């Protein structure tokens, strides 16, 4: 399939990006890695007259550590994050997640910022970034604002980003030394049907968790009832509460039937994956089992 014809723009700084957005408005799309946008253009479910390529705008790629945060340029590819020494050292669970997105070609072309802004629900990063407490920097012509990952995606293919804003950075607070994160997902296609991110984040020696469900709904959903049920429970006693808490939370999730599976199947997956992600985050060994 071939896309409709479009004009292509290669701005070299953000001011030029903002000028192009002003000039072309809704006829223009910001273009990053293209792994989602080009598919949609080829399938002709989207049509734009103008593509504004962000890949050659300096300063939007790369990772740095600053003020207790890992600051990731939005145009960084999944592959670059999977192999980045800072990400591997400070947020190893995010490096591992990046290394398992789709396939190597998608990881090489696809970017973290494009993934978040396209907001295709069957994506891995959002739930984990929400669990990590990440925030996103949106730059407009007149300044920038910070939005929590938890508030960024409003639903399928919908975010709070204004058309005249560019996502420039993803900021992840460096987790405490005692914290540990894990991500468990399953899908029979390359995209996750369900993905669960869990963080074990003890406070004053007491076990606390952050647990988010991704892909099952239009935006990541915090599994607060599971977090509450597990708070303070010694790790060796997790088995007494985890399975029931995970199952009852999964039953409440707003799943629907689609290509990735039926709603019931995805709720089942959510319960199993929640248990596994929590156990992994808590440092328990994986057990042999049938899903």
């Amino acid at each position, binding site marked *: 399939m071939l896309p409709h014809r479009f*004009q292509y723009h290669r701005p070299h700084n953000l001011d030029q990006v903002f000028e192009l957005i002003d000039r072309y408005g809704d006829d223009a799309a910001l273009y990053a890695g293209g792994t989602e946008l080009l598919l949609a253009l080829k399938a002709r479910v989207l049509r734009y007259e103008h593509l504004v390529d962000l890949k050659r705008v300096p300063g939007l790629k790369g990772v740095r550590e600053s003020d207790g945060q890992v600051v990731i340029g939005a145009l960084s590819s999944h592959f670059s994050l999977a192999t980045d020494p800072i990400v591997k050292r400070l947020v190893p669970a995010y490096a591992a997640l990046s290394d398992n997105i789709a396939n190597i*070609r998608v990881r090489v072309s696809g970017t973290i910022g494009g993934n978040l802004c396209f907001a295709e629900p069957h994506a891995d990063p959002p739930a984990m970034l929400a669990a990590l407490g990440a925030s996103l920097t949106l730059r407009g012509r007149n300044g920038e604002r910070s939005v929590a990952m938890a508030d960024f995606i409003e639903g399928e293919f919908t975010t709070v980003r204004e058309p005249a804003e560019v996502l420039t950075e993803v900021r992840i607070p460096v987790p405490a030394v005692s914290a540990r994160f894990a991500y468990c997902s399953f899908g029979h296609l390359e995209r996750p049907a369900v993905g669960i991110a869990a963080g074990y984040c003890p406070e004053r020696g007491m076990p606390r968790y952050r647990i988010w469900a991704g892909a099952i709904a239009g935006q990541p959903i915090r599994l607060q009832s599971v977090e509450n049920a597990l708070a303070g429970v010694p790790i060796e006693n997790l088995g007494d509460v985890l399975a029931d808490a995970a199952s009852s939370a999964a039953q409440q999730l707003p799943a629907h039937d689609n290509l990735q599976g039926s709603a019931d199947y995805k709720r089942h997956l959510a319960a199993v994956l929640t248990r596994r992600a929590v156990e992994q985050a808590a440092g328990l060994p994986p057990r042999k089992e049938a899903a």
Partner: protein
Amino acid sequence: MDAIERMRLSFTLNGRAVEVDVEPSDLLIDVLRDRLGLKGTKRSCDVEVCGACTVLVNGLPVSSCTTLAADADGQTVLTIEGVAQGGHLDRVQRAFVEHAGMQCGFCTPGMVLATTALLNVNPKPDEAEIRHFLRGNICRCTGYIKILEAVKSLV
């Protein structure tokens, strides 16, 4: 809308500098196959899943079916036609021949290029790393064991 402006791209293709005029919406695979005559790059799934259209850009694999030709501008592109040197198969190709790592051969250009990229970034991959890197290259003849043996022989 404004008239579509054609673009003049300059990039390194299989070790040679090339220039080609394209439309912004032209896909890399079509420019390679139809404009530059390099038919070794195969179109199959057309949605970045199968790996038959794999080419390397700056040493890393991309799906040329879902990459704009414009993105190759100024970059270094390797297709299967650029792997053999001076009429001699390179080591990856020889390993695929020696281990019979192909049946119909349609996935082979992508497999060889993905393997080349793997060895670029990780010269000594273990079996799990090989399987992980090549996971996105599909052989519909299902001849994976021989392909795996070929790649393992290079480590």
